[in-house]
């Protein structure tokens, strides 16, 4: 098993109702985005970290490493927010003067940048909480209970299943090519890669046909209907949602930030 899903299957929170977890993370994320408060964001970040690492048992190292992936993009956008470019001098913390422009960082700009960065991190942590405690399949089944269109969900689950077959096929072709020195020169490598992509396309096409025949032979009638194991809702997540929202709103009102 590969990727994020591996941690999700290992998580101690895996057997919680996926819809409960989905709603919890959505509520927290919405709070972050709507309240636009540094205190609220920090609190959400802490809660998600605590749930995923302490309660779920995901190693802290993995959580931090995953948080760093979007940070690169975040940093670039935050820097552009922090920088102000004007013709007239402002109250800069520091600035440089190029021709007739001032480029610098103001206190307001820095505060906005910090606020955006923390808000983004908090929202990402909500997403990671869900994906590190809930396998993809359960997320799909939770979405089904939110009455999302079945076409959308069927595509999601088929794509998810096929990704693994696709990767396996690609890997086999790659191995077969490189064992015959297909990637030993750059020129040869490009040619081999072209071959890989076209063979992969043809195989995927045939696979899709086979899959359709197999589905048809099991009584497929234009809808992928499957049975899901029944899940009990757990009141503690809803207490959590209400508690978290009221705490965040209260903090926002009290501190005003």
């Amino acid at each position, binding site marked *: 098993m590969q990727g994020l899903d591996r941690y999700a299957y290992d998580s101690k929170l895996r057997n919680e109702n996926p819809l409960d977890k989905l709603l919890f993370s959505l509520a927290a994320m919405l709070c972050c985005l709507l309240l636009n408060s540094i205190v609220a964001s920090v609190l959400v970040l802490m809660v998600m970290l605590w749930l995923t690492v302490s309660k779920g048992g995901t190693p802290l190292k993995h959580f931090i490493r995953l948080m760093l992936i979007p940070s690169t993009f975040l940093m670039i956008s935050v820097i552009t927010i922090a920088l102000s470019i004007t013709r007239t001098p402002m109250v800069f913390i520091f600035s440089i003067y190029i021709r007739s422009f001032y480029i610098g960082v103001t206190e307001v700009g820095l505060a906005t940048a910090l606020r955006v960065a923390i808000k983004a991190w908090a929202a990402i942590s909500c997403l990671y909480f869900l994906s590190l405690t809930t396998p993809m399949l359960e997320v799909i089944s939770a979405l089904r209970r939110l009455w999302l269109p079945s076409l959308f969900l069927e595509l999601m689950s088929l794509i998810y299943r096929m990704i*693994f077959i696709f990767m396996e096929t690609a890997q086999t072709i790659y191995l077969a090519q490189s064992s015959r020195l297909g990637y030993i020169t750059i020129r040869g490598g490009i040619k081999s890669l072209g071959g890989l992509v076209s063979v992969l396309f043809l195989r995927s096409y045939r696979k899709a046909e086979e899959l359709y*025949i*197999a589905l*048809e032979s099991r*009584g497929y009638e234009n809808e992928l209907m*499957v*049975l899901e194991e029944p899940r009990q809702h757990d009141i503690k997540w809803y207490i959590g949602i209400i508690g978290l929202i009221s705490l965040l709103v209260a903090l926002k009102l009290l501190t005003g930030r």
Partner: protein
Amino acid sequence: MKEAILETKNLDYKYISGEVALKDISLKIHRGETVAILGGNGAGKSTLFQCFNGILRPTSGELLVASRTVKYTASALKELRRTVGLVFQDSDSQLFSASVYQDVSFGAVNLKLPLEEIRLRVDTALKRTGTLHLKDRPTHSLSFGEKKRVAIAGVLVMEPQIIVLDEPTAGLDPKGVSEIMTLLKETQKQLGISIVLSTHDIDLVGLYCDYVYVLEKGRLILEGRPREVFDRADILRSAHLRLPRIGHLMEILKKHDGFSFQQLGYTIAEARRELRNWYSSKTKQGEK
């Protein structure tokens, strides 16, 4: 004679290109029987199997289920697919869901059964195939043999009367082969279903099958009980097949080494019996 559950009469199938895939196939599968369809690569086994299940519609000829001709209407096809369960050679193209439990449930849900009945059937099928412990595992983390068994479970939930398997043992290790065959025979014993399988593993045939059809280039060239078929080694070989290894050994011993067997043995048990007979007659001669 038991009733024929599945029957074809002069069945022909041509590809759209006009190439003949099956020609004049007439065969009968009886209730509770295990039938092997043998044939080299490209002999038409998979095409025939897809005709059994109504995926392909014969160009001419008839398909009969329980002595009734199949009409290719939507409801008849549904009934046909419920009666004849097809297990594909490549489990990966059969397992569409990333969840074992959901995949197995698919056929039963399509039959629009009551929820409780579906649950019961899924659990029974998982238990029967020894895959109950895999139900919470994602499909892509299963081994080849586990996928095969889950694919079989996915067909068993529909409670078919015939289960058709395209090369069920291909690619499995020896233990996997015997596990799959044991589970199929066990299921057959409990439910009285018929099993049709194609295989290149000739050694299996004498052990597990009651009847054999041999296909070559889309035609039936030989049929009979395993022993009867193996007695025609010349025809088998012309169809890119062979005798079971042990049968081949017996043949060589008889032909070239002067062993006088009453008949050839095609399984270890049969060969052992023949060899013991030969040995005891030899020692008796020596005493005289």
